[in-house]
């Protein structure tokens, strides 16, 4: 493989996505407003310690923002008739997938960093392991951007339908991943279900990095997120290859 050509393709695809899809309304509705409303609805009027729930809120925002770009791109491009042209450029399917994931991950990274800075500066929250926080931000954003891309590869060419499908998948995840109910308080079948969600390990890792109670050793959290990212990328490639011509 010609690596410089491959890398250039990934960066140009990501640049294209950032120029076009960062400005789309669904990204802000599903990526920013929704997690903010959810947290406000959960937090306001209850005597809760913000430092306990902040890592969960941070994880939820990261999850929603990084996974909001991916579901939009492929169906939007198929509908607009630009996907076929993109395929004719000097890019491979992997190039397109990684470029889209990079654009989604950078968006998530930007927003989650802003939220983290807000929490540290204005709410006085502390970070006990900066290296772990940075690692989780990079891995978490890559992982959930890849999940978003996987959802977009299902073959639909109507962005609203794919966004609906992605909400159907994403919403249950936030309720079973230790955001609203601490992982340490879960037991039995609920805990087993929670352990199946990669978001659980992001919440747990962020808890560890911000001095809160964590269930797993942080290396387990990092490893599971890494494996989930690889799994999502390979699954996306397989599914997108099968559905490549659908809707063209």
């Amino acid at each position, binding site marked *: 493989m010609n690596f410089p*050509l491959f890398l*250039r393709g990934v960066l140009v695809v990501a640049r294209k996505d950032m120029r076009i899809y960062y400005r789309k309304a669904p990204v802000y509705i599903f990526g920013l407003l929704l997690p903010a409303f959810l947290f406000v609805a959960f937090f306001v009027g209850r005597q809760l310690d913000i430092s306990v729930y902040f890592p969960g809120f941070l994880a939820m925002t990261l999850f929603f923002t990084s996974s909001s770009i991916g579901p939009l791109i492929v169906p939007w491009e198929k509908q607009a008739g630009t996907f076929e042209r993109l395929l004719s450029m000097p890019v491979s399917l992997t190039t397109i997938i990684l470029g889209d994931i990079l654009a989604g991950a950078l968006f998530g990274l930007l927003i989650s960093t802003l939220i983290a800075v807000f929490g540290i500066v204005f709410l006085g929250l502390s970070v006990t392991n900066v290296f772990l926080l940075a690692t989780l931000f990079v891995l978490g954003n890559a992982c959930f951007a890849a999940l978003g891309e996987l959802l977009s590869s299902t073959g639909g060419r109507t962005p609203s339908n794919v966004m609906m499908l992605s909400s159907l998948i994403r919403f249950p995840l936030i309720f079973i991943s230790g955001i609203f109910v601490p992982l340490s308080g879960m037991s039995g079948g609920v805990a087993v279900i929670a352990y199946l969600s990669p978001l659980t390990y992001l919440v747990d890792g962020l808890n560890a990095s911000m001095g809160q109670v964590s269930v797993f050793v942080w290396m387990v959290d990092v490893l599971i997120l890494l494996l989930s990212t690889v799994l999502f990328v390979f699954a996306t490639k397989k599914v997108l290859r099968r559905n490549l011509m659908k809707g063209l």
Partner: protein
Amino acid sequence: MTSAVDVVNLTKRFGKLLAVDRVSFEIEKGEIFGLLGPNGAGKTTTIRMLTGIMEPDAGSVLIEGIDLVKHPLEAKMKMGCIPEVGNVYQDLSARENLDLVGRFYGLSKRERGSRSEELLAVLGLSDRGDDYVRTFSKGMRQRVSIACAIIHRPAVLFLDEPTEGLDVHSRRVIIDLVKKMNAQGSTIVLTTHNIEEANRLCERVCIINKGRIVAIEAPEKLRRAYESIQAVEVAFDGNVDASWFAFGHVSNIEACGDKWRFCTDDPDEAIKGIVKVAEEKKAKIISIATMGPSLEDIFVKLTEGGI
């Protein structure tokens, strides 16, 4: 010398449908090559495989000697493409679209800038370069699309129905640009429904039907090969009835505007018969002309399986 495009036994199947069946051809460097065929014949599937949009089930495609399946990125660097559904990004300006495509092909900032200005000027879009493409007409969008396909001066240019549904001005601008690219050394491969356009532009045409090549030849040679499909075109002063001319040597009669077209394998006998009937029916002949088979006649015959 290496061919511009070398296709060997290209095959594609969609479920039970064999869309492209062991198609093989070679296109010389600098040639204008046309792919013709009725809807569903396999043209678009073929061109999608030639441009790396779709992977073939079997067979190989070499672009300037580079195997498209084994080295897709390097092969795609050699080509420019206007796919059938090949819109440009409507949320970007014409200039931004050109800049984006230039980046894909690794052009420097200076090259992207100078090529963009040059192409926008040639295509009559200089004053609209910074406007969003979504505000453009279909013809203007297609001009941006072709500019994107040639910004890197490709060795091989693929065009899938490039002038379909365009106004006369946009059509002419695009045809002129394609001819100019060819004069500068680019090989052109185009699919079209417009047979006259193919006739005027292409040095060779490949007629595909039901996924298989039924003819591949220069338009003029094809015409000579099928001289049995000739016609006599006659204009009468006053009304005539097609049934008057139902005699041997005339296989089909059709009205073409104010003229009648008599398809025949023997123009001499047909003319004698037409003149005789005209005298009997007291129909005055204004003009009469013999015509060789048009590319369209051959196309229809071949794709109907009539020859």
